[in-house]
């Protein structure tokens, strides 16, 4: 892994893209070059000095040449509410936004794909958890994998990653919405189960890997489905983080190997090892 750095980033854009969803583009030349799929950045909320903790977000997309990264985020609390208000002018006026990264490990699937060949990988993303799977899909396809994507969201307009995935895959990802406004009505775990049952949509071969990112309950169900199907599965954990670099032990994940730090030993863990 590349050393993390603390970049003073310009905010290039920060726009609403769905219900409580925002897409932010940051100018972080070093992080844009060095981030691997699944890694995250730890952001300081701009112009909010009472909010001292950084906020962790996965990198959704990166453009090494332009030196930018994209973050897709949902407004859930005070910090993300303030983040959504940040404008390029505000961030410029406050001397840029402090972005620590790239942090954390990456999906083992990428290493495996690069050493082995022609893996069949199923990606399952719930809600905003779809974002970190995009970089993964890119790298897996580059490495010659066959990739199927299952996305779940509450409503159609929350399925904001669908088009990027469709463009990358050259076909529609399988989608489910809670309210049935798009794709299969209900939870996306039905789709992940069907995919595991049917095999890869490209050639019908059984999957070699499942990678999931989303709310804990979703990841737990998909991990169980993968276990059932004897397919190795990785999950991306989310814990409250202070340091983000492995020093404070705020972000522990219980695993069969003991307590692990989500920020430094993860966020990606072998699903078999996570004690849910």
């Amino acid at each position, binding site marked *: 892994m590349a050393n993390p750095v603390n970049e003073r980033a310009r905010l290039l854009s920060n726009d609403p893209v769905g219900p409580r969803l925002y897409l932010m583009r940051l100018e972080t030349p070093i992080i844009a070059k060095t981030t691997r799929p699944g890694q995250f950045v730890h952001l300081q909320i701009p112009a909010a000095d009472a909010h001292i903790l950084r906020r962790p977000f996965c990198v959704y997309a990166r453009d090494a040449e332009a030196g930018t990264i994209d973050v897709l985020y949902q407004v859930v609390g005070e910090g993300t509410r303030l983040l959504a208000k940040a404008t390029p002018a505000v961030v410029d006026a406050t001397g840029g936004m402090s972005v620590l990264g790239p942090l954390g490990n990456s999906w083992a699937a990428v290493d495996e794909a690069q050493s082995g060949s022609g893996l069949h990988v199923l990606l399952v993303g719930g809600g905003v958890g779809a974002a970190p799977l995009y970089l993964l899909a890119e790298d897996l396809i580059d490495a010659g994998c066959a990739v199927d994507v299952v996305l779940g969201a509450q409503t159609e307009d929350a399925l904001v990653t669908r088009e990027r995935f469709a463009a990358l895959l050259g076909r529609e990802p399988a989608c489910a919405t809670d309210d049935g406004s798009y794709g299969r009505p209900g939870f996306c775990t039905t789709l992940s189960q069907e995919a595991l049952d049917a095999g890869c949509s490209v050639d019908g071969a059984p999957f070699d890997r499942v990678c999931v990112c989303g709310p804990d309950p979703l990841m737990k169900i998909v991990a169980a489905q993968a276990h059932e199907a004897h397919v190795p599965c990785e999950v991306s954990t989310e814990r409250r983080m202070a*340091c983000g670099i492995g020093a404070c032990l705020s972000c522990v994940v219980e695993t069969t190997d003991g307590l692990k730090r989500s920020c430094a030993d993860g966020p990606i863990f072998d699903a078999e090892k996570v004690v849910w």
Partner: protein
Amino acid sequence: MAENTDSRAHIRETSVSLAVNLGGLPMKNPVTDASGTFAAGREFSAFVDVAELGAVTTKGVSLNGWQGNAAPRIAETPSGMLNSIGLQNPGVAHLMADELPWLKSQGATAIVNVSGHSFDEYVQVIEALEDADAVGAYEVNISCPNVDEGGMTIGTDPASVQKVVGACRRATKRPLIVKLTPNVTDVAEIARAAVSAGADALSLINTVLGMAVDAERRRPQLARVVGGLSGPCVKPIALRQVWEVHNAVDVPLLGMGGISSGIDAIEFMLCGATAVAVGTANFVCPTATVDVANGIIDYCERQGVSDVAELIGGLQC
């Protein structure tokens, strides 16, 4: 994490004399980290060269290690945070096998923060560490709940403080720093108890007991309900206690609580601190320790202070 010296922050050259002596521990400058916020420094080595710090204070260590508390373990509060890590640590053997040798290889001075759930455990941890040559001083954290005394925090009762400090004192000739809890009616009384039992220096403050609530879900934000408050919000409390203790005892003080700039550090020194520790600020910015040291240098140069030690207790009132 591989070295990447180019991007690290460094303490800059200065003609200001920065060395201080903390109860027998010589420090090349007055800045260390606050225990538990810096691990044993390795995680920060992409950002700072730990050998440049006055010392590296390691995370609290117990005899055989503790699991710590359930998650969530932290919450943000206005200008601060709560933590209930619960002193998770892998035990003193791991520290000696893994962290101390690394610190030594870096050329860093180590202050080892010692915790225990009984008077005996403190002593046993120190006894184990007496075999390690890379220990510059002990910092005894008396904010731990004591099973010998029904779970009460040792550091809130002068008699218990005397007992544990006395026992630690007999176990070592190394500089013994005792870390006080702020959650007491009269910190000066506790300070006097610690000094009378043989403390060479005192450090303060540990975290302030606090709580945070998730109103929407009607639940505490921390799994353990109550946690320790730290960060800029506690600085006024910390300065007051450092000042009170400075006026009550004659040993040097290691001041901490919300320090995030050189000016913050100077404030503590003026109130009587010989050295300062940077805690929560490391989470805000991983170069905080070095930034604080450079800020101290800026202040001294601007004010024409040739020796930082001149500032200790220099408050005019």
